[in-house]
């Protein structure tokens, strides 16, 4: 173990002990039950923050700083896939040209979800492949970027895929620096850093995520849980395809089983509703019911799903044919009678329908009398292994979330693949330059993460190790900080204005337990960050509380109540600046106003002798801290976009106009990574 890791582990351990010591004491001995309506939310928020801190510490425990990568094998086949939807052609082409210059032999493709002729022309002129959705996708769910990639996976064949957002300009050595990890045959993914060139040093919008693309990913890597973040990553095609196939098989099996299980009652009901005189149909339904029973039995004996469903469909087909045939018999007799009439009257040509061909055609499921019974038809359709209503049967990239990357990666880990985080800037991208775009993007990431949490909660994924489950959960947990933020804002305001204290006493006990914890917690940050700036991240984790809360509620509405996520599409072009965007951060401004007013009231109450000195001073400090956190919002609202001062630190991507469509931008879990905010209490 390196000395650095030893130091980190020591601090993690001390932080955990001090944190538990504080929070347990808070619950057991210091909650002011007389003011439970404030005291309980506060201690819950503090517990939330402690868990956040413990999860962070768990990651740091296995911090894996990989250093120099292994050299790649020669002769691997690689596709470089550049995803685009509506970004300007020039911007995409700048990325594509840089991709052509990547040194390791590869093929370059532009995945143009916008199906733009001018994009195609530009790609072809530069000698870059151009892929757009195939015919299969017409009228099918498109699944945004995940669908775009899935479509391309069917049309390309390299063993490895480098995935790049349209604005991520790669370095020539990007593959040389990453492919070596795949010498390990179980390695499925290598994620590299995401760095943005159009961001000033003080990063007003918190675009860079130095703590995430650094210690946090390296910590997850230690638990074999480094995340896929949608861009600047190399994936093994095999791993992706396996996800798709396994997923397909699982889903089909589940669907077929479920339908065979409920099928009988559906058919019985349909039979009851069929009039007695329709004996043919009633008999037919009886046969379908028997077919359901047989299929279930055969599956129970372990026969192959494909055989059983095939035979089931054949049986039903026969039943359909018989029903149609009996209708046709009557029809044929009628037609003969009609022909006879026409001959009498001397009109008509008498050449009528060929019953056999009609039989063939009408036996098609939609047009047989069996098809008329919707519930039975739906059942019959579902006992099949095709994917009705999807463009592709096998979809490697997960489509359960608007952030396909996290869900896909979790499934990959579930199948036993490894991932690696390679901490190096190998592509240079563009970040949103205005508050509105930035807020939309963060909302989308948060929503996507919440969707995964609610649809495929990592804690219940039996194929993941516990370390992996906790690493995934850790990121999701950090997105719940919005609720804690409200409490941390309200508590000092309530004390200063009304004098309600959520703790029993501001005793020395309190300070002795809290302060050391806060200090070591910050120390942990300082050590793991190793010179990286983490303050912005800490600020935004609290300051964007309305976004986090909205992400949670809208994802809940989507997953549980089946409502639309209704996330807005990010504006395509940079807004012409029309003054600071105060309207986007109204809740934060109100909160800041309340903090300031409360401080004034608090000081007045102190002067009037209505409030205690220690409590007031402590809460004023807390207010000052909250205001320091929220000050970033003012800065962000006033930000007018990037103006390069010196030469940019990287091969300059186009800086103007900035685009960032939520459709394609990758996912940077926004982890405030921290809890400095957490443990104020008084």
């Amino acid at each position: 173990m390196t000395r650095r890791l030893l130091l980190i582990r020591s601090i993690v351990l001390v932080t955990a002990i001090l944190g538990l010591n504080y929070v347990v004491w808070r619950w057991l001995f210091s909650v002011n039950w007389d003011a439970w309506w404030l005291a309980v939310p506060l201690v819950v928020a503090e517990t939330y923050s402690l868990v956040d801190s413990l999860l962070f510490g768990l990651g740091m425990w296995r911090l894996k700083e990989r250093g120099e990568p292994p050299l790649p094998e020669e002769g691997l086949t690689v596709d470089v896939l550049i995803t685009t939807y509506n970004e300007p052609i020039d911007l995409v082409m700048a990325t594509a040209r840089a991709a052509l210059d990547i040194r390791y032999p590869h093929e370059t493709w532009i995945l143009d979800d916008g199906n733009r002729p001018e994009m195609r022309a530009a790609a072809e002129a530069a000698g870059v492949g151009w892929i757009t959705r195939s015919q299969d996708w017409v009228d099918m769910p498109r699944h945004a970027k995940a669908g775009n990639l899935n479509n391309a996976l069917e049309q390309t064949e390299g063993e490895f895929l480098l995935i790049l957002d349209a604005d991520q300009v790669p370095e020539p050595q990007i593959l040389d620096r990453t492919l070596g990890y795949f010498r390990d045959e179980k390695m499925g993914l290598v994620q590299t850093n995401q760095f943005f060139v159009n961001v000033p040093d003080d990063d007003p919008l918190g675009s860079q995520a130095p703590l995430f693309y650094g210690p946090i990913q390296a910590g997850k890597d230690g638990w074999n849980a480094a995340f896929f973040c949608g861009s600047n990553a190399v994936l093994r095609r095999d791993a992706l395809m396996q996800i798709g196939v396994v997923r397909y098989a699982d889903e089909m099996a589940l669907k077929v089983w479920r339908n065979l299980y409920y099928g009988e009652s559906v058919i019985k009901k349909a039979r009851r509703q069929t009039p007695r005189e329709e004996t043919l149909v009633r008999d037919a339904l009886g046969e379908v019911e028997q077919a359901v029973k047989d299929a279930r039995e055969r599956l129970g004996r372990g026969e192959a799903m494909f055989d059983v469903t095939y035979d089931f469909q054949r049986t039903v087909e026969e039943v359909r044919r018989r029903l149609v045939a009996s209708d046709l018999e009557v029809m044929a007799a009628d037609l003969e009678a009609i022909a006879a009439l026409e001959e009498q009257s001397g009109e008509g040509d008498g050449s009528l329908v060929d019953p056999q061909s009609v039989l063939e055609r009408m036996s098609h499921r939609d047009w047989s009398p069996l098809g008329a019974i919707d519930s039975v038809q739906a059942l019959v359709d579902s006992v099949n292994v095709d994917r009705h209503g999807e463009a592709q049967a096998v979809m490697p990239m997960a489509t359960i979330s608007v952030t396909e990357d996290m869900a896909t990666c979790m499934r990959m880990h579930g199948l036993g693949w490894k991932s690696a985080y390679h901490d190096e800037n190998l592509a240079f991208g563009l970040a949103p330059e205005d508050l509105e775009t930035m807020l939309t993007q963060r909302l989308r990431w948060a929503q996507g993460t919440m969707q995964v949490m609610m649809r495929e909660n990592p804690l219940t994924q039996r194929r993941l190790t516990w370390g992996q489950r906790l690493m995934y959960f850790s990121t999701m947990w950090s997105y719940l900080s919005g609720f804690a933020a409200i409490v941390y804002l309200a508590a000092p305001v309530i004390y200063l204005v009304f004098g309600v204290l959520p703790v029993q006493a501001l005793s020395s006990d309190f300070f002795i337990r809290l302060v050391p914890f806060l200090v070591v917690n910050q120390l942990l940050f300082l050590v793991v960050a190793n010179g990286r700036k983490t303050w912005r991240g800490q600020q935004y984790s609290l300051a964007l509380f309305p976004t986090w809360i909205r992400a949670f509620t809208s994802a809940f509405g989507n997953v549980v109540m089946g409502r639309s996520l209704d996330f807005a599409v990010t504006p395509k072009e940079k807004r012409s600046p029309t003054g600071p965007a105060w309207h986007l951060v109204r809740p934060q401004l109100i909160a800041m106003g309340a903090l300031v007013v409360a401080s004034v009231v608090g000081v007045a109450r102190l002067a009037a002798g209505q409030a205690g000195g220690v409590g007031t001073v402590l809460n004023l400090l807390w207010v000052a801290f909250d205001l320091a956190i929220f000050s970033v919002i003012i800065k962000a609202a006033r930000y007018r976009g990037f103006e390069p001062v010196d030469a940019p630190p990287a091969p300059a991507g186009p800086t103007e106009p900035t685009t960032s469509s939520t459709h394609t931008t990758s996912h940077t879990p926004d982890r405030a990574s921290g809890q400095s905010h957490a443990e104020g209490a008084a």
Partner: protein
Amino acid sequence: MTEFHVDTTASGIGVVRPEGRLNMVAARQLKSVLADLVAGGTHRIVVDLADTSFIDSSGLGALIGGVKSTRQQGGDLRIARPTEAVLTVLDLTNLTKILRPRDTVDGAFDD
């Protein structure tokens, strides 16, 4: 459930307008509606398919049966305004020869 609107025009033409899916169950109803009309002396009938979203072999059978019984009485059954879904089935089965779709209900007996 499929509904049937039945009208008789001034010139004595019966107009039947099934609404919804003309399937097995509805076909039986249609048969009896048509039979009632014929029995009541209405031998010229237009089936207005503007609101028929679906037809299966039973539904087709009912229409053909109607053609037969009206023609036996010297009248005819014609269909008007079929929807895309219905037209597909008619084309597929080659039945447009007997059941040539007319564009309007009023003009269905003009030729």
